């Protein structure tokens, strides 16, 4: 089933009815995993500024998806927090985010989700595109993270966006990632 769907992938994202907005001029990253089945999909796109990793999972209902989105966002936020009183034997990393590196969250309204808001987190990510980077020399990318749920397809979609740190500060990166997040998808040309 997975191979069948890959061959029928076309330009749209499987099981969603959406595609990447052409205005961003994104291409699929060939070396990144690209899989799809009746249970979900995974793909990565990039242009000269951004890299966008998408993961879709079919879940039974919106309540489960809401729980998933909330817990995972919290878990990513926690990666940036100091652990001053850890369970003994647990990782204790002494790095603490400077105030200007503390990740920011804001509501976004993706264009394809009429009236639905979701939370976008933007924070530091390592060279391996791992969230939780707090030290200036550790941050190679600014990372954006959000999830949403497409009720008709029962598809929970997780979006991870990365922008090279370059000379951008977190505030500037946040603006760029927010704009991309809201306009990332458009309705696909055909019915999935």
């Amino acid at each position, binding site marked *: 089933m997975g191979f069948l769907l890959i061959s029928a992938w076309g330009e749209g994202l499987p099981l969603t009815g959406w595609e990447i907005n052409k205005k961003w001029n994104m291409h699929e990253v060939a070396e990144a995993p690209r*899989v799809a089945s009746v*249970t*979900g999909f995974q793909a990565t796109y990039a242009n000269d500024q951004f890299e966008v990793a998408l993961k879709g999972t079919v879940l039974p209902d919106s309540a489960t998806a809401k729980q998933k989105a909330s817990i995972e966002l919290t878990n990513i936020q*926690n990666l940036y927090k100091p652990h001053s009183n850890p369970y003994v034997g647990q*990782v*204790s990393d*002494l790095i603490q985010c400077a105030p200007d590196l503390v990740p920011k969250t804001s509501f976004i309204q993706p264009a394809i989700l009429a009236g639905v808001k979701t939370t976008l987190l933007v924070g530091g990510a390592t060279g391996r595109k791992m*969230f939780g980077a707090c030290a200036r020399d550790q941050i190679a990318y600014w990372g954006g993270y959000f999830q949403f749920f497409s009720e008709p397809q029962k598809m929970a979609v997780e979006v*991870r966006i990365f922008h090279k740190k370059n000379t951008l500060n977190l505030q500037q990166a946040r603006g760029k990632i927010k704009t991309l997040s809201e306009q990332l998808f458009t309705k696909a040309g055909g019915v999935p």
Partner: protein
Amino acid sequence: MKRGREKCVAAALVLITLGCLLYAGKITLGLSQAAAGGPIRPNVFVISVCSLRKDLLSTYGHKGGSVMPALEQFFGQSSVLYERAFNGVPWISIISFIEPYFPLLTAQGYLAASPYWEYAYTRIPLQRTLQTARPEASELNDSEFEKDYKSYAEDVKQQILLPRSAPFALVVHIKYLHYPLIDQFNSDSEWDHFLSQSERDQIAEYSKHPEKYFSKLPMMLMLTGDPKYALAHPEIQRTVKKRDAATLRSLSGLVSNERYLQEWKASPGYAGDLEIVKKAYAGNARYLDQKLLEPMFNLYGNDELKRNTVVVFAGDHGEMHMERDQLTHATSGYDEAVEIPAAVKFPSDWPSGIRVKGQTPIHRIADLTEGVLAGSVHRENLAEKIQSLTDDVIILRDCRNTVRGLRFKNKYKYLVDTASGERQLFDLEQDPDELVNVALSRSETADEMEALYWTHLPQFNWIPPYRCLPW
């Protein structure tokens, strides 16, 4: 206003009382059955051992000389042996699942108690389970816990042999295998039993010059728990400004820090260092087996107790010895960290020889224990009940919620890394050592596991996270 508040308090008391009566109903039923000639209520003695790796035991495939003969014998004689038992929250013990039951048992005539042993580590904070069960314990200082095996063993022995007219339920949690591995509190300790002289000299050398051997930080914290090794590391010297007690205590957590583990692994002599850690751990296991477990399994030679006591044994989690570059526990979802040895020995007139092959989460062993205490599990229905106490899905996570996943039917292990989003899927039948990630080639299965995770998440979320992050 005051009357309104009194009414609220009164209503709350009525609700609590009703709840307790309803909950206690199943216990009362058990006692009534016994009084009417039904199943006789046995004593229940639960022995929980912290940080016990299953590969120390031939029961679970260990080859070579036995390090823990008393435990091996107990498993050999046990009525119920769990071949695949797991704790998906590898910093919490079976006590957390049983202890909430104790106040009601006490009210029904059981003598319920839980002597803790914080062994050899003054900086391990009090555990909330103890504070919940015995509120007065929150007043205790760490130093008031017994740290020598003789006084602890004597305490347990006295509680077991205490003459009483009602059955007892006693839970002990033994942290002897929890790091730090060097036992400073027992003069006859055997942590260095398996070490050669050159290995002892190596530890002495690292200890004498911590600034020279700063890359040995995880090893030395594992052996000693002493923050001086952390403070000797140049990066920590730069980063840590405060030297208060809380900061020093937090430094011991660096034992599992990935960056320092990589630094240690790249250092000269790493292979020998790791052997030292493993040998010190095995030496402690040997000591634990001889000094504590053997007399406990023997119920201190009391024949009457042997006739009417159920002994439940369970590890609380395993321990990583640098498999996949991980050390200790609570940071890993791999089987070395989450699989636990477990068995139950019933009196001789109960069914025996039951082997549970299905994957069993630790809370199901607690369910069995509670069933015995409540009278709903007895010798007539044990064999039938026991097979139903397994779970197709066991939810897994680490202390900081950086890794989550599940174990499915002894068939698949599924893990997700929070920071990278990377998924891992292992086919446990083909790849029991969890070495080949098939998440991409079997993406459909990985997606199914992901959905199962979210639909089964409530499995543990009623358990307090203790010092770890909430669910």
